[in-house]
């Protein structure tokens, strides 16, 4: 029996099809959300079904999560990304106490007790501390985001990025480049800037180990290492951190079927 989780974020949409028989991921899709979240989710679901070789009707229950969750008419239920990320992360690391999720539009810290969320904190209304912040900065630096981790590891010095606002930070970077500051030092500074914001959120919720990180930004090892350094903990990362919310949604859909 299959269940499905759909995580409709502002940047990307993820679909996970879970096989209840072995609780293994039968297939997953990561696609751009674009301007029509409903269509993006529909298309991603079709693709995920094709990968397994099943029809949509073979899926017993669908749970939608993420910011676009309320706009998915074919979902049986929508559940917040707080519960879904928590459930997804716990399915991978059962003894977790803290989940740090940095997605395209927001970041959140979830505190867990016996595998269930007991508290959470989400970032404010701006893009600072999110994946989008890094994307914009990568654009300003004309460096592929994928290279940020390597640069972070290899570079010893950093410059402080003082602007919180993404738009102002972009201007600050352009100005730093104009002053001949080495781009690698700016990259390192940017990573610390995002990490400082997340660290403060983690401390507000109360850090407890084990800690896992989910969301697309968890793929950036530079951010992960900087967070580990600042929080003085080892952070667990799923093989595919971007699908954790959808995975959790697929698990929660099992309760509906």
């Amino acid at each position, binding site marked *: 029996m299959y269940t499905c989780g759909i995580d409709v974020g502002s940047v990307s949409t993820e679909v996970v099809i879970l096989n209840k028989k072995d609780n293994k991921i039968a297939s997953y899709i990561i696609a751009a959300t674009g301007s029509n979240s409903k269509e993006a989710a529909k298309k991603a679901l079709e693709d995920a079904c094709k990968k397994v070789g099943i029809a949509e009707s073979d899926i017993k229950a669908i749970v939608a999560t993420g*910011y676009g969750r309320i706009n998915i008419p074919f979902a049986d239920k929508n*559940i*917040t990304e*707080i*519960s879904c990320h928590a459930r997804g992360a716990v399915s991978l690391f059962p003894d977790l106490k803290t989940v740090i999720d940095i997605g395209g539009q*927001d970041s959140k810290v979830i505190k867990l007790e016996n595998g*269930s*969320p*007991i*508290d959470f904190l989400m970032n404010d209304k701006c893009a600072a501390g999110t994946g989008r912040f890094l994307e914009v900065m990568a654009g300003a630096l004309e460096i592929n985001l994928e290279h940020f981790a390597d640069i972070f590891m290899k570079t010893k010095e950093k410059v402080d990025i003082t602007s919180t606002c993404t738009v102002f930070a972009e201007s600050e970077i352009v100005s730093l480049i104009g002053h001949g500051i080495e781009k690698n030092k700016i990259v390192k500074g940017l990573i610390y800037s995002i990490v400082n914001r997340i660290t403060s959120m983690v401390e507000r919720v109360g850090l407890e180990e084990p800690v896992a990180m989910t969301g697309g930004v968890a793929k950036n090892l530079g951010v992960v290492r900087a967070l580990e350094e600042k929080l003085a903990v080892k952070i667990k990362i799923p093989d595919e951190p971007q699908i954790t919310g959808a995975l959790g949604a697929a698990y929660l859909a099992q309760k509906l079927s």
Partner: protein
Amino acid sequence: MGSVLQNLKEQTKVKLRENLNQKYITRLLNIIVSKPVVLAYANTFSSKSDKYLNVFSLKQIKNAYSSHSPTAYGSLFLPYELFYSLGILPFLPEVIAGYSAGLGLADKTLKKASSNWYSQDLCTFHRSASGAVELDLFPKPTFIICTSLACDAAQKSFYLYAKNYGIEDNFYLLDVPYSHTPESVSYLSKQIKNLSMDICKKLGKKLDINKFKEAIELSNEFREWAIKVNDLRKTLVNYPLNYNGLNFILPFHGLAGSKDGVTLYKEMYKEFSRCLKKQKAENSGTKKTHKRILWLHLKPYYKNEIFQTLEEENCKVVFEEINYVYWDKLDPDRPFYSMAQKMLSHYLRGGLENRIDAILNMAKDYKIDGAILLSHWGCRQSNGGARIIKDSLNQYNIPALVLDTDCVDQNNSSKGQIKTRIQGFIEILNSK
């Protein structure tokens, strides 16, 4: 007929936005509170107390705009018995700022405040009211009275209003000491007495102690009914339609000491008693099917989905901090002393432990499952203690959500994020 009246109401709001000036507001208020209009709308109110709430609140505002009696601006946390004793009409700019957000007028007033250098960090209740004063939308006051109790912005904002109207000599600040001691009661009593004598002198009349006695007696009656209403709410689940306790900020403050205040709360008691009786007969309140929420601080006044979301998720706000009766019965023979005692008894006076004690009492009395603390932009007196309040409730295994948003400026609030936070919080409550 109902939809026609509803459309008319919406059209009036649009017209008000288009013709935003004091003359138009006064004319509109005179029409709205006139007998034929109240009668025409009688059936659109969900209950008699809903009607009283709207009519009495509007009447108080209308009187301030159009009456020949002297009007006095008053900040929250003042004893409004004082206003009724002195025969001055209360006008509460902070509350009106909330109402104007509901009418979609806050953008204009906030913009005006912003262009006149009011800091973006200032609470939007005060910023919006400041903009309204600058735009000359409020009735000109004869006196301005405020207090240092709880709110740090009021005393500064209200002084600026006085300056704007050129009535600095008629500005009064009731300075409430940090501690509740016999000395502080005496210090505050003297201030209230001096203020009263000064206002009477300026109005060219003698201080009438019987008026004070009368207001204090009405205030006591008001208090008794409010306590009775709050007691019923400990078990009441099925409220009259459209009831939202957070709408009672004006009556709870501004009607204490008036006949209207007594009438409203007495009616509420009658209605709630009937609801409870019906609930008991239907047995609908015995099996708990909902999550019980305590609401701390205020609500957003502009159109929002918070309460609809709570309802959809089967959560009921069973009590609101703003409706907590924190003061003892007042002594009509010692009015100044009594009003000082009332102010000093406030749980927002002094250290945070007073507020925490009050919140924990409410949590116990109303058997809550969770609490939502609305953290209003710029409200330092409330936000500063958010973490400690949350931790204090957590100690009793009560989850608490600190909801960062703005009660007046909807541009300071993200609908999607608020919804996610509330739903996430409810999911935590449901998993317990």
